[in-house]
C-alpha cells in the first residue's frame, strides 16, 4: 500500500541553523500539507500546497518557514533560522481530490539546541 515517507526521521540542529525536512507524498496525490506536534501538545496545521502554490497557511507559518516542491516527487519544509520553540515532530500529509482524506507520514522529530 502506498505511503507518505519522510526524511530524516530525527534531526538535531543548533539554534539559528537552517533545516530542510523532506517528504515524498503518495504518487498520485495532488495536495500536500505540513503539520507539527510539539511534545505533549496538539497536532497543529502549518501549511497546505497545491499546484505549486500555498493554498492555506496558519499563523505559525511565518517568514521563517517556506515550502517547495523541487521536483515531481519531493515536498520540502524549510526553516530558515531555527528557534528552540521549533522543536517538534513535523508531519507531512498528502491527499487526492477524490478521497478527501489526508494520509500522514511517520514524521520527523526535530530538536533545536
Amino acid at each position: 500500500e502506498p505511503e507518505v515517507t519522510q526524511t530524516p526521521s530525527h534531526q538535531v540542529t543548533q539554534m539559528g541553523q537552517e533545516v530542510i525536512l523532506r517528504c515524498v507524498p503518495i504518487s498520485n496525490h495532488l495536495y500536500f500539507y505540513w503539520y507539527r506536534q510539539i511534545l505533549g501538545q496538539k497536532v497543529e496545521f502549518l501549511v497546505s500546497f497545491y499546484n505549486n502554490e500555498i493554498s492555506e497557511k496558519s499563523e505559525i507559518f511565518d517568514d521563517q518557514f517556506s515550502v517547495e516542491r523541487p521536483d515531481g516527487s519531493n515536498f520540502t519544509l524549510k526553516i530558515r533560522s531555527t528557534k528552540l520553540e521549533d522543536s517538534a515532530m513535523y508531519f507531512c500529509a498528502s491527499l487526492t481530490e477524490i478521497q478527501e482524506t489526508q494520509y500522514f507520514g511517520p514524521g520527523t522529530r526535530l530538536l533545536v539546541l
Partner: protein
Amino acid sequence: AQSVAQPEDQVNVAEGNPLTVKCTYSVSGNPYLFWYVQYPNRGLQFLLKYITGDNLVKGSYGFEAEFNKSQTSFHLKKPSALVSDSALYFCAVSRGGRRALTFGSGTRLQVQP
C-alpha cells in the same frame, strides 16, 4: 474558527468490553470529521471519516463513529476492545475535504487484558 474537544485524556477499558472515545467539534458550515490513531513512534493513521450520508460510519479495525449534528459530536466506538487497540486517538475537523485539519488534544486508550 474551528475547534475540537476531546474531554478525556485517557480511557481505560477491559479487553472484550465496548469502548467509546468522545469528541465534540465546532465549525462553520458542514463539518468534515475524522479519526486518526497514533501508535508509539508512528505517524497518524487514518481510521474513518464522516462527510455526508449515514450518521454511523464504519472504519478500519472494527471501529465506528456516530455523527450527531444536534450535539456536535463524533464519538468513536468499538463493540469489543482489543489490547492491540491501545494507542493515542485524535479527532479532527475541517471545513472541506482539502482544507486544514484542526485536531483535538488526543485521548490515550488503554485496553487491559
